[in-house]
């Protein structure tokens, strides 16, 4: 389980961006992280990935924090960033090879997974190309391919759909469901609320660095005393209050 316990953090000690966040992501579930721009979603993600250290509070994966067992923590988590971040000097295939090396994926497993993913995202013909010649959507696909190649126990996804074509969006959603069935715990940050409502099991609504509402859609509706409204309407109610 990914456990975030009373985490306060930010870019400087004097100015916290997120405040006392407590939530968890268990195996085989998709948790939607929802909030306006600047609500603290990316900061939360950076703390989970270990790119930032919390001022207070703890973050644990299956009982271990990053400091306690760095290798295990890192091997269990895959990440899809909002903005594609790639090595200019590596081709698409080399990105996959590098990821396989970094996560110690056996060669046969790597070849099978990599080829399946390339096929699914229609990237076979581009596998020997350098990413700086790709469109933004294709660059984003590199991030998706590398993350799914790992088949980690947990996945953190930051706005994965920006720039993707409809077929790729369909493929990624399909993969998310498959991985969830295999037991993956997924934290999905997105602004597409209709999609979140359809695919996520639970939600965290973040506003100004604090969790305003959390739980399933029914839980949230109950907390707002509005039993039949959509996630989008719940969200507007929270942020407009």
């Amino acid at each position, binding site marked *: 389980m990914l456990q975030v316990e009373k985490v306060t953090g930010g870019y400087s000690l004097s100015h916290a961006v997120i405040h006392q966040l407590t939530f968890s992501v268990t195996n085989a579930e998709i948790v939607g992280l929802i909030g306006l721009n600047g609500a603290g979603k990316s900061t939360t993600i950076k703390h989970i990935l270990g*790119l930032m250290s919390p001022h207070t509070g703890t973050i644990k994966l299956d009982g271990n924090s990053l400091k306690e067992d760095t290798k295990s923590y*890192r091997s269990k988590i895959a990440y899809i960033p909002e903005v594609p971040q790639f090595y200019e000097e*590596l081709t698409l295939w080399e990105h996959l090879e590098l990821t396989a090396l970094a*996560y110690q994926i056996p060669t046969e497993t790597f070849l099978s997974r990599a080829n399946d993913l390339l096929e699914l995202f229609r990237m076979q013909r581009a596998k020997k190309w350098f990413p700086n010649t790709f469109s933004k959507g294709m660059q984003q696909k590199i991030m998706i391919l590398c993350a799914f190649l790992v088949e980690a126990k947990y996945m953190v996804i930051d706005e994965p759909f920006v720039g993707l074509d409809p077929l790729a969006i369909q493929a990624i959603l399909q993969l998310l469901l498959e991985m969830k069935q295999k037991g993956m715990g997924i934290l999905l940050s997105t602004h597409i609320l209709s999609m979140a409502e359809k695919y996520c099991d639970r939600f965290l609504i973040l506003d100004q660095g604090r969790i305003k509402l959390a739980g399933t859609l029914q839980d949230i509706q109950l907390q707002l005393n509005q039993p039949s409204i959509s996630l989008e309407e719940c969200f507007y109610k929270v942020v407009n209050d």
Partner: protein
Amino acid sequence: MTTEQLFQKRMKHSWRQAIHILVSISRGSGFPILIGMIVIFFYMGYQQFLTWYPADFPLALMLAIVYAPIITFTNIRTWLQKADLIFLLPLEHRMQSYFKQSLIYTGSVDLIRMLFLFSVAYPVFRLHMGSSLDYLLTLCWMIALQIMNLLLKWNVLRSKQLFTPFQQKLWDLLRVFIIFFALYTFLQHYWSGALISIIIMLVLLFQSQRNASRIYPWEKMIQIESNTRVRFLNWVNWFVDLPFHAERTIYARKWLMWIIQKTERHQDAFLYLYTRSFIRDRDLFPMYLRINFFFACLIIFIPSVFFQFFAIALSMILEAIQLLDIANPNRYPIWISLYPQQNTLQWSRLIRNLLFVQMFFLSFVAYFSNIPLLSICTLLLIGGISIVLYVYLYLPFKFKKANPTLLG
């Protein structure tokens, strides 16, 4: 604001930034010491060359070989930016004076560079080729060639005809060859040859002028400008850590990658990454070859054990500074800090191996140009210890201090 004023403003801003960066380099990166060493080394080597110089040495040929590429190389500075496609494109009809300023600026910079570099040849020219008047006439000839070269390049840039990268390279080579021929024939006083070469230049100039489009090649010029900026920032990166990630030019280098793929054992992710960074970077690998080639030539031509030793040491320092870029965490995206496999200073293995290869290669060249074996052994011992200290003590300290989270 007129377009001329805009050009002036951009040019001044860019110079202010460059001066600011150069000042910070000179404050604390070993750069002044390095420049001092190069100047002293060059001065002493040049003096030795002047004393050694035999009567039958083909000086005109050597000068033409050295100065033809210098005259040909020109980088048209426009300071255009991507946003200009939106904001300046509608003003295209008023951009003529902007680009005129750009050509005047580029020509002036080229001229200053050539005056400086040709002044180096004055002693050898004066001693072995003719009077000061001959020197001045040659200089005027070179200036004329340089101006024609710049105009030719500008016309080709605006050409209606599209060139493939290969055709572009051929065209550049042709320009180098014509200028080489023009300079060589002038220095040798083959007036008919010099006249023919200048006629060829004028015909090309006329033809390219006719073929030039009225529409400016905005995207091409923006790309050239961006490449210039990246080259400068990459160079700066050798001496100071830039806090941002400069876009790089990457070459596939398929033949070399084929060899690497056949020889490497895929076990370490970071070594995999760093090897490719080194091979495919626009500058790192070619510079490695150039440094080795240049210093090997120096070692062969300079008949002094002391200078050969000094040349090897200097080449190692230059290469070590250059290879710093591989280990610079700012070069890579966040992934390297997210991998479960720790970055146990794998870049140090690559840098160490490259420096050792260079040291052995240059020592080998020195051995065959009559350095005693005992001196070579001493050199290898001192060099080896220096490499180990640099790679295993200095570099980890430097980068850990710069970014403690990124290294293992």
